[in-house]
């Protein structure tokens, strides 16, 4: 007899991560000092793991607007937009956003996630949705909740998209849905080509501008403004929890479509509306985004500084062209150790492991605020360099050359940086597997097989010993000294080697669907 709860009590990974002190999630922040620094476990750390791109969450004007709204309207609307939950503030924000985004209409929804779920309401049984494989989980769910057919194309692979479009039923309604900026690796969608294909195959286009609204484009209107393709992008989605210093989401587009969603989307009509404080904060943030373009400039300057700073040390920041700066680590356990060391040295960043990224491509994701000071940023860079060397992620000395980053500044049209060798998946099957063992595998083996494994290990040791060269022996002679020097590193090293024995290395599911 199986119990629904069995999987919860049998879930080993969590217990192991917790026991080894490498559990990096749900960290409670005890206090915030201007958003760029926070207190965790009584320790003050630099925050480079938030999406508060413009640093507005700590802006006194935004705070005050929220406080005033609470005083005027109370703490909640206690109901759905459809019935009792619509305030004049909601309508004001919608009108201002529609104007800001150059659209006929806009609707604000309680969270960004629900905003994407609302997409389901316009996707009918005979429609076809073409979505990027690395789209955010909320888009994946939004499409899953609809009755439409989903066709996923390989990340930013326009040939694949075209192939799928060409194969689709010509008379079916079609829509291409993509993230504007991909949240983990920081590259942009190929909107120019998507728009071209959409025109040719008579499809609609929707971009999720969660990470680009307020960041990209001359006026901060996101990916479509950056590419000069606002008219061609039919629907634009944004969130308030990033640049807008609040909570909630917006969907903007033609009046009829938005009006339909307003009345049909279940995530709108069966959910309590945005709280007065959230709306007021978003309204004020919008005002500041329009009035202070220097924040965007500063943010992109910071992004460039950090990308190049990391690259100069020998780190790999991948394809990103945005203030999302992923630092490639590779091994999953090493990534956790890296995160732990960062945390201890006073830097808050997020480890990203499979299945959010491909196996063996674990990374530390950093993202920046326009309000970070240079001193804070230098501290982050120094910390990364020290730890990177200690954990052998970067060489002891800086490389003589590095390729400077290209940043998606207004007026440029870069999509992504050149993917480096370490990011490209190793093609040869020989490199693919290190042959680690999991406990589950071990428990399934017969005692004969276990003995075989043990004997193989002895064989390997003997072989290595028999092949020792004089040079190696000399090195071995120094080993005790070396070990003593590195004694502080030893537990971590053992942990890394040992953890592979217990943890599945995330090889199931190479593409990310569940992200963030």
């Amino acid at each position, binding site marked *: 007899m199986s119990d629904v709860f069995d999987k919860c009590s049998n879930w080993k990974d969590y217990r192991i991560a917790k026991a080894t002190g490498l559990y990096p999630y749900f960290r409670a922040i005890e206090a915030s000092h201007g958003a760029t620094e926070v207190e965790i476990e009584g320790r003050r750390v630099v925050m480079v793991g938030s999406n508060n791109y413009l640093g507005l969450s700590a802006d006194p004007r935004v705070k005050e607007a929220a406080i005033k709204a609470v005083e005027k309207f109370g703490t909640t609307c206690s109901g759905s937009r459809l019935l009792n939950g619509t305030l004049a503030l909601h309508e004001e924000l919608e009108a201002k956003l529609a104007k800001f985004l150059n659209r006929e209409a806009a609707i604000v929804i309680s969270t960004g996630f629900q905003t994407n779920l609302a997409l389901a309401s316009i996707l009918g049984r005979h429609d076809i949705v073409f979505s990027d494989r690395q789209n955010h989980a909320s888009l994946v769910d939004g499409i899953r909740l609809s009755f439409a057919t989903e066709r996923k194309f390989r990340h930013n692979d326009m040939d694949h998209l075209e192939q799928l479009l060409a194969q689709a039923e010509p008379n079916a309604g079609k829509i291409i849905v993509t993230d504007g900026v991909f949240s983990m690796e920081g590259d942009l969608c190929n909107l120019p080509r998507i728009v071209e294909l959409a025109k040719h195959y008579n499809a609609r286009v929707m971009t999720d501008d969660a990470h680009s609204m307020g960041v990209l484009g001359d006026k901060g209107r996101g990916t479509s403004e950056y590419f000069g393709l606002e008219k061609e992008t039919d629907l634009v989605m944004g969130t308030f929890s990033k640049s807008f210093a609040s909570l909630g989401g917006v969907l903007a587009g033609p009046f009829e479509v938005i009006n339909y969603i307003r009345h049909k989307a279940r995530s709108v009509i069966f959910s309590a509306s945005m709280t007065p404080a959230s709306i007021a904060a978003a309204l004020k943030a919008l005002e500041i985004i329009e009035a202070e373009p220097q924040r965007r400039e500063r943010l992109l300057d910071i992004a460039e500084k950090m990308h190049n700073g990391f690259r100069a040390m020998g780190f790999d920041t991948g394809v990103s062209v945005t203030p999302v700066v992923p630092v490639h680590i590779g091994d999953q356990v090493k990534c956790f150790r890296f995160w732990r060391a960062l945390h201890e040295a006073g830097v808050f960043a997020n480890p990203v492991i499979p299945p959010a990224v491909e196996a063996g491509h674990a990374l530390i994701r950093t993202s920046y605020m326009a309000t970070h000071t240079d001193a804070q940023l230098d501290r982050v860079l120094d910390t990364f360099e020290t730890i990177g060397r200690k954990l052998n992620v970067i060489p002891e000395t800086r490389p003589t050359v590095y390729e400077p980053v290209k940043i998606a500044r207004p007026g440029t049209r870069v999509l992504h940086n050149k993917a480096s060798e370490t990011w490209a998946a190793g*093609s*040869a*099957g*020989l*490199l*693919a*597997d*290190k*042959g680690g063992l999991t406990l589950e595998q071990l428990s399934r083996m017969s005692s004969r097989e276990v003995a075989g494994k*043990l*004997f193989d290990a*002895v*064989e*390997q040791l*003997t*072989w290595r010993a*028999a092949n020792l*060269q004089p040079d190696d022996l000399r090195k071995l002679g120094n080993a005790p000294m070396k070990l003593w020097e590195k004694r502080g590193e030893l537990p971590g090293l053992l942990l890394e080697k040992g953890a592979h024995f217990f943890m599945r290395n995330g090889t199931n599911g190479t593409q990310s669907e569940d992200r963030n």
Partner: protein
Amino acid sequence: MALPAEPSSPATASLPPLPSDVQVTPVRGSTEKMQFIRFPYGIYKNDPNWVMPLEMERKDFLDPKKNPFFQYGEVELFLARRGGEVVGRIAAIRNPRHMEVHGTKEGFFGLFECVNDAGITRALLDAAAAWLRERGMNAMLGPANVSSNQDWGLLIDGFDTPPAIMMPHNPPYYAALLEACGLTKAKDLYAFELSSSAAPPEKVVRIAEKLRVREGVTVRPVNMKDLDAEVKRIRDIYNSAWEKNWGFVPFTDAEFDHLAKDLKAIVRPELALMAEVKGEPVAFALTVPDANQAIKAAGGRLTHFGLPIGLAKLLLASRRINRLRLIILGIKEGYRRRGLDAILYLDTLRTAKQLGYVGGEISWTLEDNHLVNRAIESMGAQRSKTYRVYQRSL
């Protein structure tokens, strides 16, 4: 049996039919890699001449981090299975340095082992061919394990003795399998047998000794204490001497160092001879004890049930090695056709006799390298084994 739907062009009409119940898949993961390494054990179960390689050595050989070939080359391994049971293996090899040196678009197949079934052989070859074609190559040579600087060629004559160190060995039926699949001869490679009990022809001795005086040739053993510098000298001679040979690709530094490191364990400095003219190293001959005699004793592993039984056997047997293989004899451009080779052969032969070796193999040479082959035969050596490199267009 259902035949595969293939256009029956004249080229494919005569080929053996592809068996419908055999799957050829690329090797993924360490379990399959071990299956790949262990597959030959069944094939050679009853072959007294087969030398079972050390499993760990094969593992390192196929490890891109350990084998310097992978610094530039690319290898994909394939296994053929029938109902879960492995029935054949092959490697497809992309060697960009070979293509660069020879200006061709030739790829390689290698590490070929197969049960006696031409259909399976064809399936394996087709898999390798498809992999190479995908990478833009238009011809396939082989077997190469995995490059001409390691070992290559298929044994087609001389099955009665075990292979010398770093030489291939295979069942007699492989040649028929490959030929049935439309592969044709590209080149034959020869191995010669020389006994140290027979005295070298007097005429050769007389000419060589005269030369030694006239040209001022001094022959000395390699200085093991200054090995790094010596390895560099040897590499220069080697790469210059083989330059224009068919199928030759110069060693990379990493490959040569790796080979030197491997050979260092078995080499006897007395048998690594350097010839100098006025202090300049111009020729080099390397003869090593035939370690295959010892490796054979180990039975593929250094330890059995965790005990160093294989290692003990290997060490014991290594003291009883009585054969040699002359691996390299190279002369720098400009010093050839002067009889330097005869001097090196003679000195090697004399030293071998002094050290108590009964004889050995000189290998390998190209069938059409008449100059070298004649020189070897003039020493009294007999051709003992023939290896064949096959080719096929893609």
